[in-house]
């Protein structure tokens, strides 16, 4: 009689443990912060890999974009795939430099690109403005991540 009671009690003690083990492996508990990352890309859990977004398309060649604010580095309205921009070669300048823009019909770089930080004017593009892509970017067909109601000033509209 005593052994049976002990055995029954042991079994009763072990059953809930087995039930719990099964639950933890299969159940997805909602509304619990299990370490997922909430960001502008959406909600992703640590143990999941969500499908990647599609690549953004850059329009091949279109008319120039209107500036949004004064002194904005103008956006690049064409694709720049494999245009080399290194100490060896600056492909941008082969159309946009003062010398070549007449022949190519491209917008000249502004004279601000010839000045050093102290305002001294140099005879060629200032090294601080040599790497175009630090400021100028092409525009893809991406939607704004955060909704905003920015409007340019009257003089630029």
């Amino acid at each position, binding site marked *: 009689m005593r052994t049976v009671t002990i055995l029954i009690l042991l079994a009763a003690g072990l059953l809930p443990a087995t039930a719990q083990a099964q639950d933890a492996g299969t159940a997805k508990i909602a509304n619990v912060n299990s370490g997922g990352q909430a960001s502008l890309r959406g909600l992703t859990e640590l143990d999941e890999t969500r499908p990647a977004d599609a690549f953004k398309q850059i329009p091949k*060649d279109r008319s120039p974009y209107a500036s949004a604010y004064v002194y904005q580095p103008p956006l690049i309205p*064409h*694709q720049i795939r*494999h245009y*080399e921009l290194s*100490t*060896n*070669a600056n492909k941008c300048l*082969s159309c946009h430099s003062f*010398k070549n823009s007449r022949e190519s019909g491209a917008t000249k770089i502004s004279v601000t690109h010839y000045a050093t930080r102290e305002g001294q004017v140099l005879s060629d593009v200032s090294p601080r403005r040599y790497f175009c892509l630090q400021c100028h970017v092409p525009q893809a067909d991406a939607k704004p991540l955060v909704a905003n109601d920015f409007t340019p000033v009257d003089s630029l509209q």
Partner: protein
Amino acid sequence: MKLLRIFWRRLSTPSKAAAGALLAMGFVGGILFWGAFNTGMEATNSEAFCSSCHAPIVLEIRETIHYANRSGVRAICSDCHVPHEWTDKIVRKVQASKELVAWAMGTIDTVEKFEARRGHLAEREWKRMKLNNSQECRNCHDFDYMDFSVQGQRSVAQHSTALASGEKTCIDCHKGIAHRLPDMKGVEGWQ
């Protein structure tokens, strides 16, 4: 030594076979020889062969549109650097014997040596393409069949003027289309 003499005698003695049979055998032998010669020569056109010396340059093409693109139509080393016409191809291959000397002397066998020589090598190729009117480009990119209604504005503006008139050829503007550029200081027509 004796073997040579026997061989030579065999070669210089008249044959007992019929002339026609000899001609036929010679004909078949000629075909086999031509096949082997061509196969060997085409093997020197493969990407693997070129990259055995020019590996850094072959790596650079991987970022470019001639390597991987939307349509999958691509070019390998020989498509641009070896003329397609047979006579020009043979001339180029004979000129390439100079490169064997460079290989033996190790002229570009380190990255530093190659970078030092990159400008010279690029100039050679640009000059060659300028002289033959960028024929290697035109082997695939036929100007007469360029559809200006689907090209971008800038392409249309450039191709319908300078390229159409013959004033410029492909390589004048498309330097660096396939590999990284050398130091472009002093290269005329660049900046």
